[in-house]
């Protein structure tokens, strides 16, 4: 049977990371863009855990908590701002928000 070594997980994590990054580039709706960012953060947590398991050091898993907290804070604040903007223009997608340019 195939051996689920550490690189598998790393590859999976980087895949998720790139999906998140590309998602942010492609999608218009700020909410979805925000979710892509969260996706990227989760990819990093996966990498952390994989490394912690490989290095057999608990530090990696501890840092997952901090990432979690940070992600939560970001979500709360982010959604706050996005909702504030959406209330002002109902169908605001990211491209309309380009008053400042040049």
């Amino acid at each position, binding site marked *: 049977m195939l051996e689920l070594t550490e690189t598998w997980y*790393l590859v999976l994590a980087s895949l998720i*990371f790139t999906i*998140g*990054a590309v998602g*942010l580039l492609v999608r218009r709706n*700020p909410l979805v*863009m*925000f979710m892509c*960012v969260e996706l*990227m*953060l989760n*990819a*990093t947590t996966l*990498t*952390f855990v*994989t*490394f912690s398991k*490989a*290095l057999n*050091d608990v*530090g*990696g898993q501890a*840092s997952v908590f*901090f*990432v979690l907290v*940070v992600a939560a*804070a*970001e979500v709360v*604040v*982010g959604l*706050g*701002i*996005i909702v*504030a*903007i959406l209330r*002002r223009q109902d169908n605001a997608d*990211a491209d309309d*928000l*380009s*008053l*400042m*340019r*040049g």
Partner: protein
Amino acid sequence: MLSVILQDTPIPISANPVIETPEIVWSSLAPHLILILGGILLLTLVSLLRGKAPSWFHAAWTVVVAGAALGSLWPLWSRVQEDGPQTLIAGAVGLDGFSLFVTGIICVSVILSALLLEGYLRRENLVGPEWYVLMLLSASGGVIMASANDLIVLFIGLEILSVAAYVLASMHSRRISSSEAGLKYLILGAFSSAFLLYGIAMTYGATGSTNLVRIQQFLVDTVLIKNGMLLAGFAFMIVGLGFKVAAVPFHFWAPDVYQGSPTPISGYMASGIKAAGFAGFIRVFVVTFGGTYAQQWRPMVYALAVLSLLVGAYMALIQTNVKRMLAYSSIAHAGFILIGVTVATDKGTSAALFYLLVYAFMVTGSFGVVGIIGREGDGKHSLDDYQGLGKTRPGLALIFAVFLLAQAGVPFTGGFLSKFYVINAAVAEEQYVLAVIAMVSAVIAAYLYLRIIVSMYFAGADDHGVSPEMANPPAKKVPAGAAIALGIAVFATLWLGIVPDTVTSVANEAVARLVAFQG
């Protein structure tokens, strides 16, 4: 069959009952604690008093708190001078000249911005404690970042700093561009912190620990055969920190966010947050990976520096909005400071530190003046709004001229010396190409600053040189807080230009050292 399954999955219960908790030397965390508690107390006090607090109270409180934090630096500085830098809280936070210096810069920036903010908010009638609380908390984030000895602590400091900044940027409820700026800053900020985190994970994987001291130790002891992971970590971290510092490929957010967000906040962002960003940059790259791995990451930062210098200068030429001009010029300044970082020597770091301090005064002052000139609704920033300022508001125009000349690097101002030290550091390392590009960029940027001065004093002058009165001049009386702040900033800019040695000697000593954590 179910119970069999349940029994087989062991639930790990650790054996030893007591976990030794790290002993904390509270006094050395003074600046961090003062800022955090100051912010929280302000929040609770004002909410308990439910709006009976006078409007100047918030600003006064912030200034006192930041002043206290600044004051607390002195005993710590003397302690560091005596028995050298220390690492505290199980290696999480480092106390050395570098972190104290950057903390000083951030506190200065907070004081000046708070003073400017007070008048600004009254004019825009957006008075509220939230502004100051967020500023104090973001400052505390910056301080944590500056003294972080652990990548995760660095990340947390960065996040505290940025999340508060996202909100600050979008707090001007009536202006569309403010919320737009907030959103842009938020999404791209989150995007960049994801990169930074991924970089940290990579480095963690490659070196086995997130603690800078252990990483350095690890890199000294072992020679990595496959350094791919580590280099990838470098790349991602550079992306993350590069964003924070608005280095060029990652600078796109800066002009829009500086233009959109309320002007004193842009000032704070341009000075305080950028200082913290650079602190992170230097602490991670110059200090930890400064040794053998320097030539791995230096080319990347070199490219960033060159791009920032050129794009910052060239794009600034074609702007018509003064705030955007200042934004692009701050990108050019970032380029300059990056030179200090690329050189990766103590001389470079102290040059960068000095530059950051002078830059903090210049930029906060400039944005302060722009804020005042922006008049009601903080909208009037185009060049022709500045025409004839020299005649109608000579004092204000003069102060702004001093800041602009300082940013251009005219002698007898701090700007000149800071640029001089940085280029000096570059030349000492035979980075002649970099030095030349820096000077070219300074020349191009000079056109930008002089353009503003020309429009203030000379533009629209009829034949015998008398420039017209301004259409609707800004408020005659400059708010008290702003006047104090501008006074301090102008005095400091000139003082640093003429008598810089006290500060430069401090900057030279304030070079980061990683010290193994004893016990």
